[in-house]
């Protein structure tokens, strides 16, 4: 298990989501200067989303992850969970659910190229939509579990 593997996994998921056409069709371009990709973020675009213009939504933020050892006698492996957040200002849950569905279709049981790792599986584990306390924003949470082994 290594931090490098976690970085590589996050990079791979980030790249995969940014390159995904159905998801990209729903998202605006990134808010960060010089970033020409779609609104998939590693760090949130603001600390308080109520400051953001409506046009910035919907967007996706790669959230926290956990990693646990999954070593065998002759290889190093790790079991990782990755949480991904979707945020929307659509009045209702439709848009956030569509974004979550696109993320699901992009990642669940799909091939993922991770530098220095073989991805044995990536499976959907959990999904939830929550009305944010601000009364305007819809929040979607989706979590995946990955098993990887070092090459």
């Amino acid at each position, binding site marked *: 298990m290594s931090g490098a593997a976690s970085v590589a996994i996050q990079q791979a998921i980030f790249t995969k989501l940014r390159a995904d056409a159905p998801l990209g069709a729903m998202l605006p371009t990134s808010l960060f200067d010089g970033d020409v990709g779609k609104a998939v973020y590693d760090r949130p675009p603001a600390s*308080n*989303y109520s400051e953001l213009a409506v046009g910035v939504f919907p967007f996706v933020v790669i*959230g*926290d992850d956990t990693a646990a*050892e999954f070593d065998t006698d002759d290889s190093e*492996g790790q079991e990782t969970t990755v949480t991904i*957040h979707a945020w929307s200002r659509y009045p209702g849950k439709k848009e956030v659910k569509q974004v979550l569905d696109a993320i699901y279709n992009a990642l669940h049981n799909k091939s993922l190229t991770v530098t220095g790792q073989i991805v044995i599986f990536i499976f959907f584990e959990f999904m939830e939509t929550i009305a944010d306390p601000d009364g305007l924003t819809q*929040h979607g949470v989706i979590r995946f579990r990955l098993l990887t082994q070092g090459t």
Partner: protein
Amino acid sequence: MAARRIAFQTSMELTGMEELGEQFTTNGPREARNIARAAVHALAGRARDVLKRRVAKRSKALAKSIKAVRRRGKPDFPISEVRVGHDAPYGLMLEFGTSDTRAQPYIVPGVEELRPQMAQHYRDEFGAKYEKAMARKAKAAAKAQKL
């Protein structure tokens, strides 16, 4: 594909299962179920303690609201669950974040921390409770013999 084979090529040998089965037949399935139910609930207690430890510094009220609860299940399928946030409804918001506060997950990392040791914990709890049950039985038998 080679990697896949390596990852899943694990085997486990359990010895003494016949003797254990015999013991349970002798002592009655009811006793075995009670021990299993208590062991499952003890596991839920361990999960509760891990979550409490993770959240204690952030909110004492939230930590206090985390409880291990027995659920009505089938006799051979005991269920205990860990409930969060009855007296502190912001438990979910802390786990997932809101539009103006970042997520500070404690449930998923807590469960993932416990997951690799779960089987061992179950064995420990089951073994300890089984020994206690047997000691109780032996004591009762000795008392009955005296009378």
